[in-house]
């Protein structure tokens, strides 16, 4: 995995909540046995018209978002299917960072990202940033106001700086271990294999009726 420290890029907005992974990468592209080649098919059903050309009505097709690498969306991004292909598609389509808001609902806090998507993103070095809804609203307004708006994401400092005259800066939270793993570009399996002897010991005492009969 490529280490992630800082990233600067153009910010694009997608004003939808509950964007599911079927939408991020539709089923017909899941037949591949490769890890690559998904980028041009990200958001396929929204992105292309019936004749296969880019649909001008789809927000992310707007010329002002050309070259974008930071995606801002609404709550519960990446829900639905567990397909890691969704993360591969986003990363290969040039997104390095996603920003979405958590949401308060009936006294509870609904996270910005669905659980499986979050873990898939981590494994591929795609940084997910969770902000408050007001903050995301401000970003939507900034993007609307300034064509080609750029932002710099500083992972060690846990800050995102919007390069607008207003100079908006937001801090964000991230698990310390996730941060270390992203910055170090560490491989999950290698990390776990450090505990191989613990796994072996566990297996010896793990109750045999939990295993299938020989």
């Amino acid at each position, binding site marked *: 995995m490529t280490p992630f420290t800082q990233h600067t890029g153009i910010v694009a907005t997608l*004003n939808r909540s509950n964007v599911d992974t079927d*939408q991020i990468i539709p089923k017909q592209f899941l*037949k*591949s046995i490769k890890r690559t080649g998904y980028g041009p098919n990200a958001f396929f059903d929204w992105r292309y018209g019936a004749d296969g050309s880019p649909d001008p009505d789809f927000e992310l097709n707007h010329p002002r978002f050309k070259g974008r690498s930071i995606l801002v969306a609404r709550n*519960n991004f990446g829900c639905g*299917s567990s397909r*890691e292909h969704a993360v591969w598609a986003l990363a290969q389509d040039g997104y390095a960072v996603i920003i979405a808001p958590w949401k308060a609902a009936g006294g509870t806090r*609904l996270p910005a990202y669905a659980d499986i998507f979050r873990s898939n993103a981590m494994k591929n070095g795609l940084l997910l940033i969770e902000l408050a809804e007001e903050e995301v609203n401000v970003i939507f307004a900034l993007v609307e106001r300034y064509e080609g708006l750029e932002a710099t994401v500083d992972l060690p400092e846990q800050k995102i700086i919007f390069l607008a005259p207003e100079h908006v800066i937001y801090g964000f939270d991230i698990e310390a271990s996730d941060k270390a793993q992203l910055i170090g570009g560490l491989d999950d399996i290698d990390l*776990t294999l450090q*505990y191989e002897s613990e796994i072996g010991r566990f297996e010896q005492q793990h109750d045999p009726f939990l295993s299938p009969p020989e």
Partner: protein
Amino acid sequence: MGHTLFEKIWSRHVVHELPDGSVLLYIDRHLVHEVTSPQAFEGMRLSGRNIRRPELTFSTMDHNVATTEDRLDIKDPISKAQVDALEENCNDFGVSLFGLGDPHQGIVHVIGPEMGITLPGLTIVCGDSHTSTHGAFGALAFGIGTSEVEHVLVTQTLKQHEPGTYKVEFTGRLSPHVFSKDMVLKLIGTIGTAGGAGHVFEYCGEAVRSLSMEARMSMCNMSIEGGARAGMIAPDDTTIQYITGIDRPYAPTGAALDRAIAYWRSLPTDEDAEFDRTISIDAASLVPQVTWGTNPGMVIDIDQPVPGPDAGGIYSRTDVENALEYIGLTPGTRMTDVPVDVVFIGSCTNSRIEDLRQAAAVMEGRKKADHVELLVVPGSDQVRRQAEAEGLDRIFKAAGGEWRYAGCSMCLGMNPDQLRPQQRCASTSNRNFEGRQGKGGRTHLVSPEMAAAAAVAGKFVDIRKWLDR
């Protein structure tokens, strides 16, 4: 303080506590299908790593396969490459495969329980979000991504943060023609599709206790649609009867079974255990549910009108407007006035024998409406054979429907079974996302009885009134 079902299983599977507060969790069973696994096997090859416990991984082909008579001869070369890759991977790494043509082939979440691979108290994962289904047995079962599939293959563990616990209680008893599908849809409609995120549901209460294993699986299956990673139901006599009632090749027998049962009996949540969150729903007042929008939380009672953008609730104005535009409905419409083009009875939510019996009971002696296409797809080859032995296939065929071989089929349309743009479908599956069943297709989630009745009536009906006409 006592422990919940979840906590009991979790603590028993912690291999190691990691410095950041997460744990390495041991995985007892790993299920694999053709779509989310090839890159994981490839990853093992590229890094020169090997599979740790091949006997704990089981695989089948379900997503991509055709469900027609000629299914063994896969015409789409890309689908074929994926199916072939699974076969080669299973061969190379020594993993059991229930492939096309095998009497145990079927949807991964149907065959696990059927064969006794799924058992109470286990940790079970699969590169598939509906792995939550297996929680019906009182197992901790959840979906993972492909990188995690590789992680499990190599280490038989996963790095996990402990999720929160969420008690979902259904009090009272269900009325006739209301099912566990309606219960779980009501739950999702209430809390929203992110409502359970970061948590594991534990379903309990009188209405849950009285459900069959099939009905419990339908309920746990849709936990992920409420955002929860997993959903569980404590094992009881119904569970044990299901496992031991007939031969299940991977279930324990003899002394091992006695020990296993003693363990299973110890799993239910202690009286004084506490949950992070709770919700209680009156099951006795539930009526059949139907989704009107583009996620499973956009759901109403069959006798309610389609909401408008100002309805308030868990979805924003934009969400509702987008959904209504896609689904082609106007606010205030009664769902019982909405015609359907296609009826799909199948998927890991509702393709088990009991689901097919319910649909067949509604269809018996009736015909589908002329304009409706009816597709009935059993969840596994074993379900297919049993349904045929009971004559259910003949009922569906006599009604004018198509009776198919096992697979995911029109649940996600990776095979040729797809909706055409703007076709409206009453579906027993679990996702009504845009394009899920085919680009531009419009999906409405319902129970098997409601789907069968829609096929006959040619439109949605309130099954309670329609049957008593």
